[in-house]
């Protein structure tokens, strides 16, 4: 096929795509128009029903809590998959890393990066827990909090403290914590079943003040479990990847 022919096929395909795309766009509701009833209904009843002012979290961990359990386990399985694949390779002796080349020093981490990373580690831990613990009050939640929490561990690594990083996130413990987080979420649902209620029913006292930290029953509990799970899953993936990349470096020192 000549480049000319290829270009014509591309142009014909593009024209078709553009036509369908514009047709689809023309059928969209107007900007800012929300056609479905669910959002409006939830906006009206969610705070009264759950005492959570973070309505998005109320939806995630309560109204569609079952979907979120599924999503939770997607991440769990993904992290497990990464760990399985990389651990299988760990024992193998790979070809020398480029960093290992004779006579070549590792590029040292700059003092500025180390300093900033150290300064941010504490705030990242606080921020992560804050986000995970305030799903019911404000826009936040276990998922975001978990990733921020995991960032704290990565900052320790960025600060040039690889050995400290490994000490604060040993693989066995990270594995267990991840399972605890994922299992905790599922267990909250099963606890409801044990009490004769439907799966994931909010069985804890909701509190009286909407938006108080102690309000909303299981929503904040689930958020904390999700935070722990996400943080551990993310740390685990990073540990496994770093393990492979840096094992050789460590030895060469």
């Amino acid at each position, binding site marked *: 096929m000549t480049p000319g022919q290829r270009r014509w096929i591309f142009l014909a395909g593009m024209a078709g795509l553009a036509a369908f795309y514009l047709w689809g766009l023309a059928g969209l509701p107007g900007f800012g128009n929300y056609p479905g009833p669910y959002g409006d209904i939830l906006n009206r009843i969610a705070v009264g029903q759950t005492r959570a002012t973070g309505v998005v979290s109320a939806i995630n961990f309560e109204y569609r809590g079952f979907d979120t359990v599924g999503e939770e386990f997607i991440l769990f399985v993904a992290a497990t998959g990464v760990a399985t694949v990389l651990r299988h390779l760990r024992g193998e002796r790979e070809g020398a890393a480029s960093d290992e080349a004779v006579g070549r020093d590792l590029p040292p981490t700059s003092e500025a990066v180390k300093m900033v990373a150290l300064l941010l580690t504490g705030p990242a831990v606080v921020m992560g827990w804050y986000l995970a613990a305030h799903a019911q009050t404000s826009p936040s939640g276990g*998922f975001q909090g978990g990733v921020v929490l995991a960032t704290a561990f990565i900052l320790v690594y960025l600060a040039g403290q690889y050995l400290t990083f490994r000490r604060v996130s040993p693989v066995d413990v990270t594995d267990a914590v991840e399972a605890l987080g994922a299992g905790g979420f599922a267990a909250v649902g099963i606890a409801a079943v044990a009490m004769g209620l439907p799966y994931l029913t909010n069985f804890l006292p909701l509190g009286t003040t909407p938006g108080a930290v102690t309000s909303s029953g299981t929503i904040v509990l689930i958020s904390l479990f999700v935070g722990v799970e996400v943080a551990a899953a993310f740390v685990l993936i*990073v540990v496994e990847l770093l393990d492979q990349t840096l094992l050789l470096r460590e030895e060469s020192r």
Partner: protein
Amino acid sequence: MNGSHVVAVVTPHEVTPGLMDALQVTILVLVALGATAVVLTRVPARQAIVLSVYGLLLAILFLAFQAPDVTLSELTVGAVALPILLLLALAKIRSREK
């Protein structure tokens, strides 16, 4: 964005619809430019950094469209987690290539 909203944002300090529209259009254009920049960056390591900046732009976009929860998710995943994983994967590939 046609200015038909009476109030674009319900906050103690009301933002006039025109101002909100201008902000939203500006950030939409920036996101489009950012996405193009990601595609045009051909060095993978550099691309991960540009992707992180793009994630930050996208987070601001979601904030401008009044979705603070999505903003947080995009900030953590798009601007931090994804670029870190990409860089780690690149480091791993590089160490194996030689």
